[in-house]
């Protein structure tokens, strides 16, 4: 877990300290890293036969979890909006 939080925090601190000195366009780098990451994610999904057989069930579970997550997000934001208006 620490091996994921450390690069994020180091990146933020480095970016913050460099923000007046450097104009860096990270869009291209990010794009290719994402492509490599997604390819290797696809690779590990594709090479796991148990996972491929579980996929149809993952699909239905995904729809249920997504619907509930989105529903409660919208409800909570609506409540927050109402509370802000009352003030």
């Amino acid at each position, binding site marked *: 877990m620490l091996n994921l939080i450390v690069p994020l925090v180091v990146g933020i601190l480095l970016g913050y300290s460099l*923000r007046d000195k450097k104009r860096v366009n990270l869009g291209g780098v990010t794009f290719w890293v994402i492509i490599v990451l997604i390819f290797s994610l696809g690779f590990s999904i594709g090479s796991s036969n148990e996972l491929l057989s579980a996929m149809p069930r993952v699909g239905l579970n995904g729809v249920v979890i997504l619907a509930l997550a989105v529903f409660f997000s919208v409800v909570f*934001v609506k409540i927050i909006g109402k509370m802000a208006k009352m003030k």
Partner: protein
Amino acid sequence: MIKYIVAALALGGVAGYLNDNWGNALAGNFVSDYLFNASLITLLFVMGLSFGLHREAMAELKKTGFKVLVVPFAIASGSILGGLVGGLVLGVNVFGSMAVSAGYGWYTLAGPLVGQLFGPEFGALGFTVNFLRELLTITTISLAVRIDRYAPIALGGATTMDTTLPIIVRYCGSEALITAFASGFTLSLIAPFTITAIAASQ
């Protein structure tokens, strides 16, 4: 962007499937362990770097202060509650389903990270749920904006700082820009922390 991501995922899937059924010629561990972890760590570093470098984002966050955190906090709580209820309804590991919904639409993070913490099946779920969240935000924005002016921001989750920001501004008005950006920014920042915290508390 999405079409390249879908293509990379599909190509990776086909490559992994063929490699597995043709005697593991490519040494699958190299791709699914080393390449995967190296790119994930690089991505987190580069994301952190671009957050830090983003002068407007940092300045805007400082100016609005903690008030701007109310919207992403509501979205984060709502998403995680949805994951909890979903896990209970479906009878799966509720920590896994909460971690999946704590991706807030950032599928390139949630898929690999949840996969690493809860195994490949939850990784696939994390990818699917968060990928569909971004697609849903883009395709239903004209309907969502009628429910509530901030509903598209709630739907978009972490994606409202980049991919869905232009369409949100178009449908919700330019005054939604800061709220949407700050919300997506905050959710992107807390997503890796909430996912790992959920995994640690199980």
